[in-house]
């Protein structure tokens, strides 16, 4: 009796132990597998996705073997990131000798037309309205100075890190810079440590509104002020027009324009044309609308729209990281105009009076799918060389050991995500599907993509070129671009905390490699 009881107890314990192991074993394995190595190259991350262009490239047997290998090992390759140096050959080796992206620079012999030094500091600073902010500055201010250039000029920016402990970089958001100047820590350079410096050189190839920000621990450094505006003027700026930058940023929850809480006043005389360059440096979309006059949406993400018609009682939704150039012609009677940015405040344009009442946000939002009139795209999107899917989902799991509900790309969790492989000159078509339940402002570095359709409805308006595209929950976008800028380019969510939660992939040119690693001695942490 006693013995059977003891045996029963022992059996019970054994069963309980087995059940515990059956439950915890897989979890422990998943946890362990999710841990990232101390340093890894993004080239080794995830698995190569050739966009269906297996025959397009070189066509050597070596290539076929490699691509097969990477595709088959796709499911397990993620946690081997950094373990196997040879694995990267699967991405890059196609007979072409790899060239380092450090060689992808602007003409080193050309003299700079615009040269500026930006000194980054960690410090407590005051907004003009007196609010004290514990954050980061460039040349003592946040936002940093507005950089002005004219199309075709060579811009040279020397970044000096005086006191930012985590290190800094500068990324030129929306500018299709050469691969070495993209400013992504661990991908295109090492983060600039305290006392160090780095020089960015690029030709301003497109007139429009852009911005710059740190891409080292970016979710924290951007929020706390390491950013500024970049405006590239056309060769012949319209005479007599007023041009004003409206960079929106929130400091500790306080909404500011150009670092100022409340309204920003700009003088504009009756009949004058005004271009308000709205820059959304935040992690979420913001609405912009105009009270007191009709307006035109002249440009999106640094690209002019084709024949944009005047509208009124309509809001323009500016994507996180995106820009919208609002053009207003001042009323002849001298009454002021209010350009609302996200709320009752904004830019007030006037001459005699700045007493422009706030108007409520219009219910209608401008749909860029049908705004403006069509024009040639300069690419044949119907016969792409590569087709990629970028499907965003969400599921529970571990991200570098942290349990949570994380984003997925094509069903894979970071770092086991696709590496989108292209060759120079390819026409690339990407279908972005958002099944994750939340909107994502998707940002592709180094390129502008044109929107072809949303939820199967074709774009019929002006060519809509973007670098930051709001993909709402449940939406599907088709975009296309020409792979004309060799390098290794981030393709990620610009809701920057989402990037830390795994919503990061890369676009990689065949034959290009990077010597930099995420982590490592430079402690690179691009997200």
């Amino acid at each position, binding site marked *: 009796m006693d013995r059977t009881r003891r045996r029963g107890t022992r059996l019970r314990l054994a069963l309980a132990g087995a059940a515990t192991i059956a439950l915890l074993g897989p979890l422990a394995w998943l946890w362990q597998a999710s841990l990232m190595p101390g340093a890894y190259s993004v080239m080794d991350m995830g698995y190569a996705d050739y966009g269906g262009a297996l025959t397009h490239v070189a066509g050597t047997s070596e290539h076929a073997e490699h691509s097969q290998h990477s595709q088959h090992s796709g499911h397990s390759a993620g946690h081997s990131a950094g373990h196997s140096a040879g694995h990267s050959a699967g991405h890059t080796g196609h007979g072409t000798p790899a060239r380092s992206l450090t060689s992808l620079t602007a003409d080193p012999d050309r003299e700079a037309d615009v040269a500026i030094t930006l000194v980054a500091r960690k410090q407590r600073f005051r907004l003009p309205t007196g609010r004290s902010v514990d954050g980061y500055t460039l040349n003592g201010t946040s936002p940093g100075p507005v950089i002005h250039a004219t199309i075709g000029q060579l811009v040279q920016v020397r970044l000096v890190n005086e006191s930012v402990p985590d290190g800094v970089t500068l990324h030129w958001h929306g500018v299709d810079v050469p691969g070495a100047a993209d400013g992504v820590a661990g991908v295109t350079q090492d983060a600039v440590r305290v006392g160090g410096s780095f020089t960015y050189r690029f030709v301003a190839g497109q007139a429009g509104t852009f911005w710059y920000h740190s891409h080292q621990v970016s979710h924290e450094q951007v929020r706390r002020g390491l950013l500024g505006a970049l405006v590239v003027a056309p060769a012949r700026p319209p005479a007599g027009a007023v041009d004003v930058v409206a960079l929106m940023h929130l400091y500790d*929850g306080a909404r500011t324009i150009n670092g100022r809480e409340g309204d920003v006043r700009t003088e504009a005389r009756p009949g004058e044309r005004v271009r308000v360059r709205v820059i959304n440096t935040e*992690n979420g979309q*913001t609405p912009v609308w105009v009270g007191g006059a009709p307006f035109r949406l002249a440009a999106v993400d640094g690209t002019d729209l084709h024949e944009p018609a005047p509208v009124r009682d309509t809001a323009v939704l500016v994507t*996180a990281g995106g820009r919208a150039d609002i053009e207003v012609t001042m009323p002849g009677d001298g009454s002021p105009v209010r350009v609302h940015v*996200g709320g009752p405040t904004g830019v007030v344009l006037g001459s005699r009076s700045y007493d422009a009442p706030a108007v409520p946000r219009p219910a209608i939002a401008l749909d860029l799918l049908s705004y403006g009139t069509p024009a040639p795209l300069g690419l044949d999107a119907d016969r792409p060389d590569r087709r990629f899917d970028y499907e965003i989902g969400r599921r529970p799991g571990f991200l570098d050991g942290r349990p949570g509900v994380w984003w997925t790309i094509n069903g894979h969790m970071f770092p086991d995500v696709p590496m989108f492989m292209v060759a120079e000159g390819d026409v690339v078509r990407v279908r972005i599907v958002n099944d994750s339940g939340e909107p994502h402002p998707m940002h592709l570095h180094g390129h502008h993509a044109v929107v072809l359709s949303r939820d199967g409805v074709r774009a019929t308006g002006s060519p809509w070129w973007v670098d930051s595209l709001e993909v709402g*929950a449940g939406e599907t976008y088709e975009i296309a671009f020409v792979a004309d800028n060799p390098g290794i380019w981030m393709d990620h969510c610009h809701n920057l*905390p989402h990037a830390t939660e795994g919503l990061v992939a890369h676009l990689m040119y065949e034959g290009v490699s990077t010597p930099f690693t995420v982590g490592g001695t430079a402690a690179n942490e691009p997200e």
Partner: protein
Amino acid sequence: MKVVYKVLASLVAAEVAVQAMMVVLGDAGLFKYVEQGGVIDKATAESGGIQFPEFFAFVVHGVNGMMVIPVIALLLLISSFFAKIPGAVKGAALVVLLVVVQVSLGLLGHQIPALGALHGLNALLLFSAAVHAARRGRGAANAEVSDPDRPGARVETVV
């Protein structure tokens, strides 16, 4: 292990109560902020800055819901294997299931608001299941105390 089981089950119930308090606290803070002229758009919501003091409550709700409560529920399930309480495993498994449903409804509610209603309802089911499990544990623990001469007595009836 009985005590552990009981404590973990009570903890889940308490956490559901905390969740309800937090989300209504956040809501009240948000509405007061709006009443006083505050403006919220996606940019403010995602900025990470604090526009109204009760904002933290939403963050607590999310972290509690996606990390803390699932971990407690899992520990409850493991303790149920070892707790010599009739129906302990079933009780814990039900709690785990309801937590999974609750988190899914919470996340899906962002896209389909109607699921938020089910999120509220399922919270009550989860609360009941956790209290029920805890009481089961209490009954067994009492039996253990009230019958010190036959500590194994209930074991026989369990398996």
